[in-house]
């Protein structure tokens, strides 16, 4: 069960139970739908910009523990960041869950998001962890809908 513990870490289980920023933003100026048709995970990301900065970000939807916790922690991580900074973080997150960077040695901005590194050992679950990030990226870049298949 050691690998399992790496995947379902306390932080992830806790965010799954009590997701942060799990709400709609009525006056959001950017939003996008994300869904993974293979598993039925579906979420919507709302962004309220403050100039070039992410002033507020939230999400709604349903999905597995990994996708929900990832969305929750993502909203915490990108709030207050500029769009470019959010893009950079998305890039690093994506590289982490696909094994392109080593979180032990490489210098990254990922911080707490490193709990998702364990997903790498579960190829079928990589999309669960990255769905919210792809959806945020779509919102920030004015795409309405994305789908991870």
């Amino acid at each position, binding site marked *: 069960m050691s690998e399992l513990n790496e995947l*379902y870490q306390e932080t992830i*289980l806790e965010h799954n139970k009590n997701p942060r920023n799990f709400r709609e933003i009525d006056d959001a100026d950017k939003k996008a739908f994300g869904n993974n048709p*293979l*598993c*039925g995970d579906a979420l919507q990301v709302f962004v309220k910009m403050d100039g070039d900065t992410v002033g507020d970000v939230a999400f709604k939807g349903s*999905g*597995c*523990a*990994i996708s929900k916790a990832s969305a929750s922690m993502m909203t915490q991580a990108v709030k207050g960041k500029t769009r470019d900074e959010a893009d950079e973080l998305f890039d690093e997150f994506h590289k982490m869950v696909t094994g392109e960077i080593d979180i032990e040695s490489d210098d990254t901005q990922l911080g707490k998001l490193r709990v998702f590194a364990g997903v790498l050992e579960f190829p079928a679950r990589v999309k669960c962890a990255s769905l919210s990030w792809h959806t945020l990226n779509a919102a920030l870049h004015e795409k309405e809908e994305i789908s991870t298949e």
Partner: protein
Amino acid sequence: MKPKEMKSWDVEKVRKDFPVLQREVNGKPLVYLDNAASAHVPQVVIDRGSKYLAEEHSNVHRGVHYLSQHATNAFEAAREKVKRFINARESAECIFVRGCTEGVNLVASSYGRRFINEGDEILVTQMEHHSNIVPWQAIAEERGARVRMVPINTRGEIIIEEYEAMLNERTRMVAVSHVSNSLGTVNPVKEMTATAHKFGVPVCVDAAQSVPHFPVDVQDLDADFFVFSGHKMFAPTGSGVAYGKREWLDKMPPYQTGGGMIRTVSFEKTTYAPIPEKFEAGTPAIAAAIGLGAAIDYINGLDFKAAAEYEHSLLEYATERLADIPEVTIIGTAAEKASVLSFTIEGIHPHDIGTILDQQGIAIRAGHHCAQPVMNFFDVPATARASFAFYNTREEVDKLADAIQKVIEVFA
């Protein structure tokens, strides 16, 4: 459970026939409960496929040389085995296809282009797999017809009164699964077919989930079309059968065209071969079809009725074990069920269930099972699904129940 039934089925002996059941996954003995997605292949079927490829392979129906004739004989012998297995009137009514999906597409497209017209109706039940919904939607759109959904009740059974009320003079087809892949419901196909026939309406039975689990007889069911995959009945992927009554198949246009399905070709006029070749354009999946024949031989060598009874007792035992866990909800509680046990756990997504079970060597399916209308009806995004074959054991059911307890602990 009657002890007498258990005695007549030696599960440990049967397990030895399947090499994959001897392996470990994630450091644990494999507990394979994803048979509704694809079943495993016994050594005799593997050997038959290997022998064909090593010693007998050539193209069928075209060479005068020894190997081609030999391959043709083996391929046609497999068709004959299929005919006897489902009790078709003649082997020509058994068309080899790549799998159940291709079979339904063949029937929908070919029957539809000949018999479905503007304003016509196709009845499709709410519990169908997407492969018995979407081909009908596609042909309905092409022909200006409409697909009407036959509803199910909260146990996951077709509401027969509604079905009967929906049949009318505009109905051109009834599409129904023999056994639901997401709920396990065994549908009263024989009775439904008899009712449809009173209106002159043919019935297309998706038999993907029935043929591996109990003996079938297309003449007794009086099914007009009866379609199934080989890989769910212990044969290789790429094998499958679309059975159709000759009276329909003779009148239907080809599904695909090209070599192997013609009588004569000229640029003025091409004529088609008789069935089954009319529906088998191109080089078929010869090794897969021969493998299907070997799987039928394997099944025939078992006491298949005893296997079905044993497997049913296993499903009942698993249902009891899971029903004892308060957090578990079983989806699909029909009076007649086979093989499939779908469930949800309060507050835990099926994918998380699937991952945690997998770490304990237990393979189940998590998702919508290509049956989104069923998921919508039960108001769940997905379910976890354990599906049994005659090689599963009571100990494996116990492991499943224990592992589910672990899942609940992780998320407590």
